[in-house]
Each structure stands twice: as C-alpha cells, then as structure tokens.
C-alpha cells in the first residue's frame, strides 16, 4: 500500500518554523504552492495551561484530499493541537480556519456540523448500542432539524439509515450489524471509531491514533481504510506507527515540545536530522 506521493504537492518542501509566523491565506485557493486548496489551517496557535506552554506558535495547512499526519514524541502537543482544531479547548492565541472561515471560537458540535468529524485516541463508542445504531446516530446528526422529529420511528429517517448501512458495508462490519459496539474485538472497535466519524458525512476527518493498540494484521486493514477514505476526504492523522505514517501520508508535520519541528513529504521528513534527534535523543 505504498502511496505514490510524487503527484501531489511536495513543493511545500521543508519548513522549519518557530522563526516566523506563517501568514494565513484569506481563502483556501490563493496558496502559492501546490494544486489543492487549503481545507483546514491553524495559524500561530498557542495554548497555555497555567504556566505550561503546550503549543507554541503552531501553524499548519491541511490541503484538500490529502493525508496530513502529525507526529512527534509523547508530550509534543499533538493531542492539544487536535483539541484546538476540533474545538475541545480554545487556543490561547492564534486562528483556526476551516474552508476559509474563522472557526477559532466555534463550538465542538457546530464544527462537526460544518463537516469536521473526529475519532478518538481512546475508543469512545456507544458501548451499549448496536453497531448500526451508533452509525445511524452519527449519520442522523447531520440531518439538522429532522433530528427534532419526535413522532416518527427513527428508522423512518431514511437518509440516516441508508448512510449508516453504506458505511457499515464500507467498514466490512455487516456481520456484526446488530451486536453491541462494546462486544466487538478491539480492532473492530477501532474501525468503528473511524466509522462513526465517517458516517457523519464530513468532508474532513481528524483521526487521533486510529491504530492505537491494534495488532499487526488489523493495522494493515486500518491503513487501507484510511487510504481509501483519502480519495474523497481530507484526513488529519495523529499516528505513532512510523511505518503507517511514512507509507500513506502526503505531508507530515513533526512536532516537538509544543512547536512544529519539520514539515514536509515523507521522504524529506524521514531523512531530516532534526527529526532523528528529536526521536532518538541528543546523541544522534
């Protein structure tokens, strides 16, 4: 599943930030380099928790229909960046833009309805509900006012039901349609975790370590799923498995101690001396 990155925009090359605050494009299309517009962008985002600086002036630009991975050692600020992007915590300073709109102060559920869906690092499913019901709930969230229908049976909301069924097929979980999510194997729960984000019909998926705790065989399934999704979705990926990251990413942002260390296509990041130093310690 080696992903060919030569046809995508690798012109961005390597940028070592921390020196200058990248200017944010007013809309997604007037970006100097690359052929694809910026879907999701953070500009100069900082986050302090009391005296601790979790994020220091982080800027990233996620292009449409690419896999943009965020990697870094533990405590590098990946999850905090994720939380700022999805609205779980507001950044102390900086701007988050989605499809050219400033969403820095937008609430979590409104972002989700704009077309940003996330999955969680720690499996966060509806454990006591059936697989299909969880997916149906995710699909239903997007139907807006139809959700406030409290008179018809929920199955009559055909749009949500058919979306859920098609995602179920995409995840190859048809056999487990009616069992409780909590009874699935760990690997299947991780797949469903991504599926809940997918079923919401969002254009952008933010996946927080989808392969966390997965076995080798399951990782391959997840890898293929993410690659398949990237054909019509923009994907932001936090991932620890370097094999996965280097194989499937279009762009990789390496974070270290709350800042962006290096950003670029996999082959650049792989051989970058700062990355080796950050991952392996000072002696390298």
């Amino acid at each position, binding site marked *: 599943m080696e992903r060919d990155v030569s046809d995508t925009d690798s012109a961005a090359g390597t940028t070592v930030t921390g020196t200058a605050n990248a200017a944010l494009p007013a809309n997604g299309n007037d970006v100097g380099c690359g052929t694809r517009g910026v879907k999701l962008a953070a500009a100069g985002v900082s986050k302090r928790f009391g005296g601790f600086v979790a994020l220091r002036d982080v800027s990233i630009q996620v292009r449409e229909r690419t896999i943009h991975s965020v990697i870094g050692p533990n405590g590098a600020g990946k999850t905090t960046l994720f939380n700022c992007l999805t609205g779980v915590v507001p950044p102390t300073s900086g701007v988050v833009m989605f499809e050219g709109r400033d969403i820095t102060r937008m609430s979590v559920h409104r972002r989700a309805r704009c077309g940003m869906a996330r999955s969680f690092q720690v499996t966060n499913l509806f454990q006591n509900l059936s697989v299909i019901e969880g997916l149906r709930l995710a699909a239903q969230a997007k139907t807006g006012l139809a959700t406030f229908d409290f*008179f018809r049976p929920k199955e009559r909301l055909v749009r949500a039901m058919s979306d859920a069924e098609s995602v179920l097929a995409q995840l190859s979980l048809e056999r487990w349609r009616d069992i409780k999510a909590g009874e699935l194997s760990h690997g299947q729960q991780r797949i469903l975790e991504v599926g809940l984000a997918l079923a919401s019909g969002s254009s952008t998926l933010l996946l927080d370590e989808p392969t966390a705790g997965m076995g080798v065989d399951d990782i391959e399934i997840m890898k293929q799923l993410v690659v398949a999704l990237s054909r019509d979705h923009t994907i932001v990926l936090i991932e620890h498995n370097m094999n996965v990251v280097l194989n499937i990413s279009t762009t990789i942002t390496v974070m270290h101690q709350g800042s962006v260390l290096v950003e670029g296509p996999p082959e650049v990041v792989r051989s970058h001396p700062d990355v080796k130093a950050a991952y392996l310690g000072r002696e390298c």
Partner: protein
Amino acid sequence: MRRRPLLLEPTFLASIVVVLILPVVLPSVAMATEALIFVIASLGCTLLLGYVGLLSFGQAIFFGVGAYACGLALIHLGASAWGGLLAAAVISLAAGLVVGGLVTQRRGIYFVMLTLACSQMFYFIAYAMEDITGGDNGLLNVPRPPLLVFETTLLTLRTPMSFYTFAAIVFLCIYLFLQRLVSSPFGSALVAVRENEDRALAMGYNTRLFKIAAFAISAVVTGIAGALYALFLNFAPLSNIEVSMGERIIIMTILGGTGSLFGSVLGGTFYVLLGNLLSAIWPRWLLVLGLILIVVASYLRGGLLSGVNWIVEKGRGWGILRSFAVRAWSATFRIRTPPRAQP
C-alpha cells in the same frame, strides 16, 4: 425489518390492561386514581433518568407548578378541566425551560446539586407568595368542573370512577406520546447523550439543547400529573412542591426500573399501593420502603421491571402453562431474537 404499529407495542397493551384492572384489584378507585397520577409523574422522571441519564431532584417543581397553575386557572379564570391541564402544561413548560437551561450548564454531581437548589428555591417562592398559592395552607377549593367535549358532557368527574376514567385517558395519551418519542430520531439522540455525551457532541449534536428539550417535555408531563392531583384532591397543598415530593417521584421511578417507560407504571403503582396499605397499619411504613429501596438498589438494579422480565424469561416450574403463554405471546407479537454472530 418491519415494525409493528406502536399501538400494538406490548407495553402499551400492558398499560391498557393495568388501567382496566387497577380500580378492580385496588381497595378503592381513589387509590387507583392516585396511583395513575404518580405513574404519570414518574413517566416524566423516567424520560430524564432512563433515557437521558439525568438525575433530577427538581421534579417537584413541575409537579407543584402544574398543580398551582391548574388550580389558579380553575379558580380565577373559570377554566374547564381541559383548560386547567393546558394551563398546567404551558406554565410547567416555561418552568422546565428556565430550570433546564439553568441546570444543564453543569454535568454530573453539580447538575444534581443545581436541580436540588432550584427545587428549594421554588418551594420557598411558593411558600412566600401566600396571596397566590395559599402558602402553608395550600391552594384551597379547587373546583372540579365536568369534562365537556363540544358542549356535551363526556364525564361529570363527580364520581371516583368518572375521575379515574379521565386520569386513565390522560395517562394513556401521555404514555403513547412518550413511547413514540423514545423511539423517534429525537429519542435516539437523547439515548446518545446518555450513552456518551462527548461522542454525541463530537458527532454534531448540541447535547445541551437536547437536555433542555428533554427537561421541558418531562416538566410538561410532570406538570399535568400535578394538575390532575390538584383536581383529584380539590386543593393544591404546599407539599406538592417540596423537595421530598421530588424524592418520592425518583424513588418510584427507580423502584419500577428506568429501562423502559413501563417501569414507571410498576413503580408508581407499587409505591402508592404500598404507602396506602402500610400506612394504615403502621405509621412508620417509610422504614419498610427504605428497606425495599436498599434491596432494589443492591440486588435488582433494573427495578421491578427487570424482576418481571426475569420471571418471564427464567421462571421455572410453571411448566406447560408458562411455555404455552410464552409461545402465544411470541406468536402474537412475533418477537424474534436476532441471530447473534460472534465477533
């Protein structure tokens, strides 16, 4: 997968059966009426506790407000029985929106504390506004006008049976409405909030809005129960709006079981029956209730409802009679357990 019509849902049919046999098996029709009124109040609580997972100690607010609104509409505006219920519904809806908006700002234990605080406040407001609510004496002389439909008298409401019929109609309407609600898209979103609020939020549900809406609906249901109680007693005591009334409603709900709306029917009936029977022989009957609550909380977490389910599913020794009943039941309602594939 075809659904059977909601009117034929087993628990709705069971509710009709309960409505029909209550006045026959209970010692008095008045006791049956009281049971139905508290079943309705408990239904409001089940919606919040069972479906949204919200433990509200503020249900007395809506019970009391509904009783006062109905009583005042009847006394001062000369409203009909329907008008009284409508007034109760509207005013409790308003109270539900205000209280719901306030308490849903916080989750967990702070939410519970906020409902408790609101309940206390509403009690003292009712106590202080003596000119309107009658304060400590309660709102006296609530009339009970006959029930009219297009100028013709449907029920006189003068005899206990006539009033019971009225309460039964209101109860069945509310039960049917709530049954549709919990299986609707809206109801499924409430369950999503209960099961995993953070995930629901991440999927795009404005979970707070859903909680406020559930609060408002629960308030209307509880308020209507309060209104019926005022009509039933011909007065609205201050105790309607006391925190202890909210506790009573919660205890009934938990005794019955929150897994289904039918739990309320069991819990409300059981509580009223137990209260009336035991208080006649022993004034300290609440001690027994406490013991029962301990047993249910420790060993029967699904409440009486799960006890009934257990008997139906696991009960042995009924032999042919039982298997025949189960078969007839399954054949009638075509209950099929879906084949469970192992992961």
